[in-house]
């Protein structure tokens, strides 16, 4: 296991270095200059130049790259051009929303998908199965921003159970915070849950054909218990593989959903920062997202081994 962890760690670092180069290069060729954007169209040219110098935009790319990497390692990411406050603070503030949001959405996705997938598999080819799978077909076809508005229409405008968006921070209490993340998480989760439910169903059906299921039933374990205790865990390998991929899609989806619910999250920060050419923010956020995805994939790999004892490190 230690060797496996080491190897995996090395590739993880290599991936991150690759990502950092790509991110830096792509942002390097972006047209438009942060100083000009910040100053607006009618600003005096020398004012713009002064700002550019202040922001360090006049140095060569190579220097700035090293500067950035050095900063990444020491935790000093520099100051946002636009907010003129430390990027690290900005990002941490936003993460306090985006991570709980993504986790909540992932939880919804998982719970919904497992419930629907396992139930459908248990009623294979019966009415319940057909009905649930029909629902997932619809679920797959719904764009998340559209579903988000629908949720707002019903739960905020009509029923007034939730506010239509916004996030007051965790100071108001964990419950209040979760409440304002509920609808966004749900609208993020619905498509992913539909996809995952279909995958769960087929994985469960596959496992249900295995011999050990019969063995378990021969011991007197009831159908339901067999499903949840014996079948599900074996079906989890394909399920978590897909979950790993979905996590990155969820993270990306937050860009859209945070917009609809005007949540101060990482996704919106990136989107705004790109249009502001606040490259220092973009660069670090994109890097962070990439790192999160890479780390989630790493976790998924480790989870394989946790779920299935047969999988030794080297099989991965």
């Amino acid at each position: 296991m230690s060797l496996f962890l080491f190897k995996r760690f090395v590739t993880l670092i290599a991936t991150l270095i690759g990502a950092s180069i790509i991110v830096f290069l792509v942002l390097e060729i972006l047209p438009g200059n942060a100083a000009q954007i910040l100053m607006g169209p009618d600003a005096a040219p020398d004012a713009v130049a002064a700002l550019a110098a202040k922001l360090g935009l006049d140095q060569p790319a190579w220097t700035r790259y090293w500067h950035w990497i050095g900063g990444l390692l020491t935790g000093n990411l520099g100051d946002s051009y636009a907010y003129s406050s430390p990027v690290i603070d900005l990002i941490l503030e936003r993460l306090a929303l985006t991570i709980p949001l993504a986790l909540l959405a992932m939880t919804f996705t998982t719970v919904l998908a497992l419930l629907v997938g396992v139930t459908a598999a248990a009623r294979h080819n019966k009415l319940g199965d057909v009905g649930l799978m029909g629902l997932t077909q619809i679920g797959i076809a719904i764009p998340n921003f559209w579903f988000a508005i629908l949720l707002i229409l019903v739960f905020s405008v009509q029923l007034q159970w939730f506010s239509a968006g916004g996030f007051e921070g965790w100071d108001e209490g964990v419950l209040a915070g979760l409440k304002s993340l509920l609808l966004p998480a749900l609208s993020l989760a619905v498509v992913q849950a539909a996809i995952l439910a279909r995958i769960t169903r087929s994985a469960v059906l596959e496992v249900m054909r295995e011999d050990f299921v019969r063995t378990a039933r021969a011991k007197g374990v009831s159908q339901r218990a067999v499903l949840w205790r014996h079948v599900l865990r074996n079906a989890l390998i394909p399920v978590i593989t897909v979950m790993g991929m979905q996590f990155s899609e969820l993270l990306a989806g937050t860009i859209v959903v945070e917009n609809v619910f005007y949540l101060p999250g990482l996704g919106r920060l990136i989107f705004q920062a790109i249009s502001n050419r606040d490259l220092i923010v973009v660069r670090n956020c994109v890097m962070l997202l990439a790192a999160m995805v890479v780390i989630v994939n790493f976790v998924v790999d480790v989870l394989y081994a946790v779920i299935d004892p047969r999988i030794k490190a080297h099989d991965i």
Partner: protein
Amino acid sequence: MTNTPANTPLLEVTDLVRHYALPRERLFGTPPMVKALNGVSFSVRPGRSLGIVGESGSGKSTIARLVMALDKPTSGVIRLLGEDLHALPKDALRKARRNFQMVFQDPYGSLDPRQTVERIVAEPLEALGETTRAQQRELAGESLVAVGLRLADLHKYPHEFSGGQRQRIAIARALITRPKLIVADEPVSALDVSVQAQVLNLMQDLQQQYGISYLLISHDLAVVNHLCDEVCVLHRGLVVERGEPQHLFAHAEHPYTQALLAAVPRAEPVIAS
């Protein structure tokens, strides 16, 4: 080994060793090894058949893979018709393959479910690349008839056949290049007794008809006894005993062979009702 060689051997295996390195468990230190074969030698003369028996994991399939040049030995030499198989260049090896073919254990897994019987049977020809499509079809048909199937079966898919019929298809595929040697790794162990009998009879007939030699791998002593002129008993990657089956089974000397024989249940009822 009791017989003096009448002519040059068809297949000659000398000091075959195959060790598998398992992936390292830790960063530094030698990776663990599985010593599947530890110096096996035997030879097969033209038209004669050799059986290899042994318990699970004794290295039987490893021998088959090495002889078929699907895997490289750690050391040792395999000569087919005097040529060192593992030293042949790629192209020459492909040409040489017409002389040795293989029949696999699992009649359900060894036929591509998405190909027609025609394509399956003609595959060795196709790989050789010396014949046209039409010739391949014709030869495939002939081969199929030789194993007791019908021409009409050419257009069917494997799933439309029973286990015994599938094993016939596999044999037809092995037969199509008129090989001198067929390596059969447990060709009947997945089959039912009655079907097994059909396949064994077929193999016997083909041997007589075409002068094929078999390298038959099995854990069923009776099957080997039925088909082979000579038997090697394999134990932990070594040949512990060899000889004519009749003789060997009657006068086993090595304790492992004896244990093996003792374990075979006799079809004589012992419990009185």
